[in-house]
């Protein structure tokens, strides 16, 4: 049957049909055409720059002139993993520790909320809750950290409230506690969404069957709901863990004397000391940690739950 476009001219239409047919018959041409640009751009720019960065980890920098010296050595790595001066191991340990604490905290905070949203809330309240969780996520990250600085400072809201009920000042500004609170706050929505998605997918029939088979509420939760929700939790934990691992802004703004993260050292060595090789060497630590984490997460099925 002729269509509107047919009026454009039989030869033009014929050409277009032949063109489309080529793609239809050889789908790999289409795939190649579609993929070349994005993948090509990514490989050259992104992967290329990562490669260059990690190659430079094996070089050094002349401290006086700042010139990169292409002398292959592993001095940077020796410094980082040295046991006689465990500064950098200590920093890495602190970063990983707080990242883990934040992940656990967020999992605990998010799970009941996600459960309520997925299984108990009415359709309208679910939509409202969805927005209520999503909007803070997209509000400026910096602004949210700044807000906590306002709350936690000596003359801020927290101390005002504590003093109001007769408690003394909580001196948690510029401490690791402040960082833990701020990180948990900032990444919480990242945990809620995958857990919600996982819980939502659990068919009601599973829970009914479990009840029919004689399991009480807690048993059902432990043996049916939790294992099915686990991939969602792990998926969410990828974000909370990775984002905390690589962050440097929060320690800068709300951290104190002993709060340096891996990100701060990297930032210092790139932006302040202009010693990119050392920064690159240290940056391999979070990459390796995340690599391991992602492999484990994949095993636990997190990638399907993302």
């Amino acid at each position, binding site marked *: 049957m002729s269509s509107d476009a047919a009026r454009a001219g039989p030869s033009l239409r014929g050409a277009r049909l032949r063109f489309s047919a080529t793609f239809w018959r050889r789908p790999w041409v289409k795939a190649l055409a579609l993929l070349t640009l994005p993948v090509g751009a990514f490989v050259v720019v992104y992967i290329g720059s990562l490669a*260059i960065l990690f190659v430079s980890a094996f070089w050094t920098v002349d401290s006086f002139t700042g010139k990169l010296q292409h002398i292959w050595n592993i001095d940077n790595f020796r410094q980082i993993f040295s046991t006689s001066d465990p500064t950098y191991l200590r920093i890495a340990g602190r970063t990983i520790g707080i990242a883990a604490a934040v992940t656990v905290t967020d999992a605990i905070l998010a799970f009941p909320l996600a459960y309520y949203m997925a299984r108990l809330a009415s359709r309208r309240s679910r939509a409202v809750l969805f927005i209520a969780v999503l909007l803070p996520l997209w509000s400026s990250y910096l602004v949210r950290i700044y807000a906590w600085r306002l709350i936690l400072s000596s003359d801020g809201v927290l101390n005002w409230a504590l003093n109001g009920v007769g408690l003394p000042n909580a001196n948690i500004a510029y401490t690791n506690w402040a960082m833990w609170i701020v990180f948990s706050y900032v990444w919480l929505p990242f945990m809620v969404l995958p857990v919600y998605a996982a819980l939502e997918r659990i068919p009601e029939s599973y829970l009914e069957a479990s009840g029919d088979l004689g399991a009480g509420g807690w048993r059902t939760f432990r043996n049916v709901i939790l294992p099915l929700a686990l991939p969602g939790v792990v998926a969410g934990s990828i974000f909370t863990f990775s984002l905390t691992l690589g962050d440097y802004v929060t320690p800068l703004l709300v951290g104190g004397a002993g709060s340096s993260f891996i990100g701060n*050292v990297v930032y210092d060595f790139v932006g302040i000391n202009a010693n990119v090789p050392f920064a690159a060497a240290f940056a391999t630590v979070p990459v390796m940690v995340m690599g391991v984490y992602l492999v484990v997460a994949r095993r636990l099925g997190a990638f399907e739950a993302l």
Partner: protein
Amino acid sequence: MSRAKKRYLAWAALGLLTGALAVAAAGFGGSGKSSNGTSATGPSSIGKGEGALNLIEWAAYSDPSFAKKFVSQTGCKIHRKDANTSSEMVALMRTGGGGGGGQWDLVSASGDASLRLIYGHDVKPVNVKLIPSWKEFIPIFKSPAHNTVSGVHYGVSVQWGPNTLLYNTKKVKPAPTSWGAIYSTKYKGKVTVPDNTIQIADAALYLMKTKPSLGIRDPYELTKSQLDAAVKLLKRQKGLIKKYWGSAADEINLFKSGDVVIGASWPYQTLQLQAAHAPVKELIPREGATGWADTWMLASKAPHPNCAYMWMKYVTTPPVEAKQALVFGETPVNPKACPYMNRIQKGSCTKYHLNEPLGYYKTIHFWKTPVADCGNGKKNCMDYNAWQRAWTQVTS
């Protein structure tokens, strides 16, 4: 070909491509240094302004109170980036391939940054004949070793000042007289010092006077054992520190909110706090102090060199020197600024030690970059890389 084999082939190809890129990087890569210097003396005259000026500066070094007139006179709109440490200034100058990356025109480098910039070819020679006020400078700031190399000027001195001891007069009694106050446990948890690698020199200065057996003669030339001693002192100090201040305003907030009652500081913070009616005072303790002597240096790849020269010319004239000095709490290098200073604030010329004899300047240990060459024939002093690692060890 089986699926698995195809997959291996794809990964192998990707790996080869990445490896090739890496090898190419090894061959070409690096910090693509800037041009190897232009003429040895710079341009012969200042041309037309380019309409913009990008500055890397210490806070308030282009304060609108004296910069506004410059902008309206020359049309060079100022875009400023405030840096907190010399290292940050050097790093900014080295981005984008060095020489300011074609982004920055001028940097107000202190003595611990200036030589690094010169030897890294990040700054180019300046023709001081184009800056009339230069002739009037105090002699030691005309061609100091930190900005003049082999008779070639790489910038023009602008101001200098000491690192002071700042304290809260209500909470710190009696008034301190020694740097020991920030190393003793008396004010534990209420001390602050700058988060700056060069702070090691302050610790070295204290040890120079209190532990002469270590043999420190210059707080910037430290052997390994001397550096270790300084680090030990700083690590002990860490337990007393509430927060290492990153910027001037950080420290101002710490004092204002009462989180901190004593610390190492710049006169700028003292002036700001006193203007806000905070009960603070500063002093130079009996051991002496470190300090900084700043130079406006011209980036090798400066996109607006004419505006840059106009700025250097403007900011070294007596009235502007006086204004800047009183905004920051530092001292001009142009002695003709003295009457202007007294006009704005009576007695300030003497207060800021503008017209002191030569001997006074020798009591301030101006910032300079630590290098391996100890200056006394030995070459076993710790260089800046070692200082950086030591400082990270202390603060993290």
